[in-house]
Structures are given as structure tokens and as C-alpha cells.
């Protein structure tokens, strides 16, 4: 492990496990190791009780019935179960699904797999602000459409889709709605008693819980039918077999209990930090905000610094852990599919930075981050021929560039 770690402003990748969460987890790793499925003795009974209490904490955060919560290993598994499980169950009724081009790979890849199995998928464009147009969604729904899958809070640009309106539209056409809420729990209010959502995927580790545990919400009224994807001992109403990891489940429960209590305080602080980051960085000039600022969680800021390449920017920023919009570690240096879907030029998509704050972010972290980013941007623009041309008044976009190598 590294000796000294940079300031952490990458809460969109994962959040630290809240120390209060760790504390409630540990006993279930030590003396209280029973299997929650052991119903013949007290070791099992106490574990079962802890699991059920955690289940109601998760249910409470989203206004659901505990019986609507199925434990999984995380959002990716929840998404796989929701999409493959409903597609397989209902395939006699139709074989068409709809999603957005800006979804997380867990949804996109799962739907590509369903395409290979003979399903048809429409990948909808979004508006330049990252939100889906209801008219476009309505137009995409066909008589054989089974399900729509929507990312509630986008992981890269933090925009919040209007799932209430989307859900109402889906109900109108008798189409199921799955919502990926991995980034949303504890950041936006969710009330299943009023939201027309049929399935919702959640994870613990983006809401101050441990990695490796998540849940799928499956509506009971009206009941949503799906087929299990992992078979075995028939745990979780037969929807997801496998011994329940008591300590992780207890951790997720506590994390979600705390999220409900602290969501408002977290939001107020995040909003102040977002304002400071914007104020401290946009005056560098030629800085673009990716995605709607209005319909966005305050914990997220995604900026493009024109005339600088993303990997170089990331390497030049010292002492702050951030994410880049381009998959800079890959050989292809492909710009982010999300920024591309917003209609951003490749160039702007390449030069983006995702700054995500959270519960343990301090004022000092923000001050350090602003200084570090400003330094890096100024230094790299001093090296950039494009910045030089821009300063001299050239229209860089309009120039003729030689073919790519």
C-alpha cells in the first residue's frame, strides 16, 4: 500500500466506509459468525435477525417494504438480475428493451449480452444537458417493449433523470422500469411509495458502506416477475442463492440508515463545495461544464478544460485523486461514451475531469484541489500549441488537420 495518499475527490468511484459502519460490521466477523440460513440454533437466529434489520434500513431509505429488497453482491449483479431476469421471464410477451447511451457499462454490457441472446435493444440519445427527452422515449416504445432501464444519477456527469415522469410514461404503455440507483442512494430522495419504479439496483460502497454488497428492489404491488440468475439453496425468495454475508449486509444496512439521517447535511456541504470549485476553476477560461448543472447531484462536477489532454492533465495534477472522462489507461484512449453522447467534441471529451466530493471532504481538500488543478491547467496550456493558437485568435476547430496516424 502507498505511504501517503492524495486528497480523495473521487467519491463517484467509491466512498470510504464510514467508521460507524465498520464498527457495526466487525462483531459479525468475530464472535457472531453464524449462517443466517441456520434455523436450528441461536447462531443462525441472531444472524438472521441482523440481516432482517439491515433489510428494513435499506427499505426505509427508499420508502419500500423490506420484502421488496433482495441482497446481491453489488449494483452490477443487481442490474444483471433485473435485466436478464425480467427479459427471460417475459420473452414470450416481447423481446425489446430501451436504455440510454449514457448508462453505466453494467447496463450497456448486460443489454449487449441480451442482444446476443436474440433480444432487441434501443440505445437512446440524450439531450446536450444529459437528460433524456420524454418525447424521444415515448417514440421508442413499441408494442413488444418489455422494459426501460434508466440511470437515476449518472456516474460521470451526476445528472438526475426524472424517473417519476419516465415511470409514469412506462406505466401508460405497460412497460417495466428498471432504475440504476448506484450513485443515487443517499444523494437524492427516493420514495418507492410514490415512484412508478418496478426494479431498482443499489450498492453499498457508493453510500459509505462496504464493497461487495448491494441489493435489488423488486416491486410487490403490482408484483414484478423475474427469473433467478444464480441458483443454489433458494435464498432470497429463490431470486438469489448463496450464503448471505452477514457482516456486509449489516454494513449496508447501517450505511443506508446513516444516509437517511445525514443526507441533508451531506447535501448542504456538497453544494457549498461545488460552488467553490466552480468559482475557483471556471475563471481559467475555456472551461466547460459537462451535463446539466441544475439537474445534478451537488457532489459531482464534470469539467472540460479545452486545449489540454485528459491523461496529461491527470498526470500533472499532484496530490489530488480524481477521475478523467477518457479511459486514459486503455490503448485506444477512447473518450468517454457519456461525454460523446452529450455531443461533446472528442477534443473536449478527452480533456474532462470528474471531481466528486463526499461526506468526509474538508475545506482544506477543496482549497488544495483548486490550487492543484489551476497549476496543472496553467502549466499544460503553456505547453499546448492549441492554446497558443486560441490566444492568437485562431479558430482551432475550423482548421484543417492532417489525417490521424
Amino acid at each position: 500500500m502507498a505511504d501517503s495518499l492524495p486528497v480523495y475527490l473521487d467519491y463517484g468511484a467509491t466512498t470510504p466506509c464510514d467508521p460507524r459502519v465498520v464498527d457495526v460490521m466487525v462483531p459479525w466477523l468475530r464472535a457472531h459468525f453464524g449462517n443466517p440460513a441456520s434455523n436450528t440454533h441461536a447462531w443462525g437466529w441472531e444472524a438472521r435477525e441482523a440481516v432482517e434489520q439491515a433489510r428494513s434500513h435499506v427499505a426505509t431509505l427508499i420508502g419500500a417494504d423490506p420484502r421488496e429488497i433482495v441482497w446481491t453482491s453489488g449494483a452490477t449483479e443487481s442490474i444483471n438480475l433485473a435485466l436478464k431476469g425480467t427479459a427471460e421471464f417475459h420473452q414470450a410477451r416481447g423481446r425489446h428493451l430501451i436504455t440510454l447511451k449514457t448508462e453505466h457499462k453494467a447496463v450497456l454490457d448486460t443489454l449487449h449480452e441480451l442482444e446476443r441472446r436474440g433480444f432487441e435493444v434501443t440505445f437512446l440519445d440524450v439531450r446536450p444537458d444529459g437528460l433524456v427527452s420524454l418525447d424521444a422515449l415515448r417514440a421508442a416504445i413499441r408494442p413488444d417493449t418489455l422494459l426501460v432501464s434508466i440511470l437515476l444519477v449518472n456516474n460521470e456527469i451526476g445528472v438526475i433523470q426524472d424517473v417519476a415522469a419516465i415511470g409514469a410514461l412506462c406505466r401508460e404503455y405497460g412497460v417495466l422500469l428498471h432504475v440504476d440507483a448506484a450513485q443515487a442512494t443517499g444523494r437524492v430522495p427516493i420514495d418507492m411509495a410514490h415512484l412508478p419504479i418496478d426494479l431498482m439496483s443499489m450498492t453499498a460502497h457508493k453510500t459509505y458502506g462496504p464493497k461487495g454488497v448491494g441489493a435489488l428492489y423488486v416491486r410487490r404491488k403490482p408484483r414484478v416477475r423475474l427469473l433467478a440468475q444464480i441458483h443454489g439453496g433458494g435464498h432470497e425468495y429463490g431470486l438469489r442463492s448463496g450464503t448471505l454475508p452477514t457482516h456486509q449486509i449489516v454494513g449496508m444496512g447501517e450505511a443506508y440508515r446513516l444516509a437517511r439521517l445525514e443526507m441533508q447535511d451531506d447535501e448542504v456541504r456538497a453544494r457549498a463545495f461545488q460552488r467553490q470549485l466552480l468559482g475557483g476553476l471556471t475563471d481559467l477560461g475555456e472551461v466547460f461544464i459537462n451535463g446539466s448543472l441544475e439537474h445534478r447531484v451537488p457532489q459531482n462536477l464534470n469539467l472540460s478544460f479545452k486545449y489540454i489532454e485528459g491523461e496529461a492533465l491527470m498526470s500533472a495534477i499532484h496530490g489530488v485523486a480524481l477521475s478523467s472522462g477518457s479511459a486514459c489507461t486503455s490503448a485506444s484512449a477512447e473518450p468517454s461514451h457519456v461525454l460523446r453522447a452529450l455531443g461533446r467534441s472528442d477534443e473536449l471529451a478527452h480533456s474532462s475531469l470528474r471531481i466528486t466530493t463526499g461526506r468526509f471532504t474538508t475545506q482544506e481538500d477543496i482549497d488544495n484541489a483548486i490550487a492543484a488543478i489551476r497549476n496543472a491547467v496553467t502549466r499544460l496550456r503553456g505547453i499546448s500549441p492549441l492554446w497558443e493558437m486560441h490566444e492568437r485568435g485562431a479558430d482551432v476547430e475550423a482548421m484543417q488537420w492532417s489525417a490521424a496516424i
Partner: protein
Amino acid sequence: MAYSPQLIDHFEHPRNVGSLDERHGDVGTALVGSPQVGEVIKLQIRIDPAAGLIDQACFKAYGSSAAIAASSLATQWLHGRSLDAAAAITHADITRELALPPERMHCAILVTQAIKAAVSDYQAKHNTRTA
């Protein structure tokens, strides 16, 4: 990303960043790459007419840290070279010196293209061609 110390040094402390007057007869200028692919290198050389050797080389680069480091290294190597010796720098030389990972080798190729283009630009100004 585990880059070599040489690469990191050139990226953190790039040599010969700057611009020469491209209209000057003794200056050869190259602009290669494109913003769309994420890499643009401007490389310039100035030739001492008496000696026929490069007495100044400078660059500006938009691109990954490897592209910036490779450009910086190239300008260092160009100093004091003849045009033929400049054009003889290969991408393998640059790749080796900076220990570029395979997925960044295209940066070295782009830099050698820039060197050749700068030499050609100078030669075009003087209507001379080497064999």
C-alpha cells in the same frame, strides 16, 4: 500507469518549450496530429546557415504525458544535428530512451513525423532537397 523516471522528468520539466517565428527563412516548422485524436505536436528547428546545423529546437504539444515527454526529448536530441542526422532519429530511439509502453509508442512515431516535417519545411523554403 508506471511511467519511467526519464519520461516523468521530461513531462514535469519539459525542455525547450516555445515558439520560433515560422516566417523566418532559417526556421523549419511542423504541425502534426489533430485535436480529434488527442495529440498535436508543433516542432520547430532553426538552422545556423553557416554551419548547416540545427542550433535551436523547440516544441509545443497537446497530448498525453508521453507525447509531451517525447517532444521534449526530441528537441534535446536535435540540437547540433545536421538535417540528415535529425531525420535519422527513429521512433525506436525515442521509445527506448523513455521506456514508452507499447500503447504510447504512437507518440514516438508522431514526434519522428514532426521532425521530418520540420526538416521538409526548412528545405522547401530553400528549394533544396537531400537525396
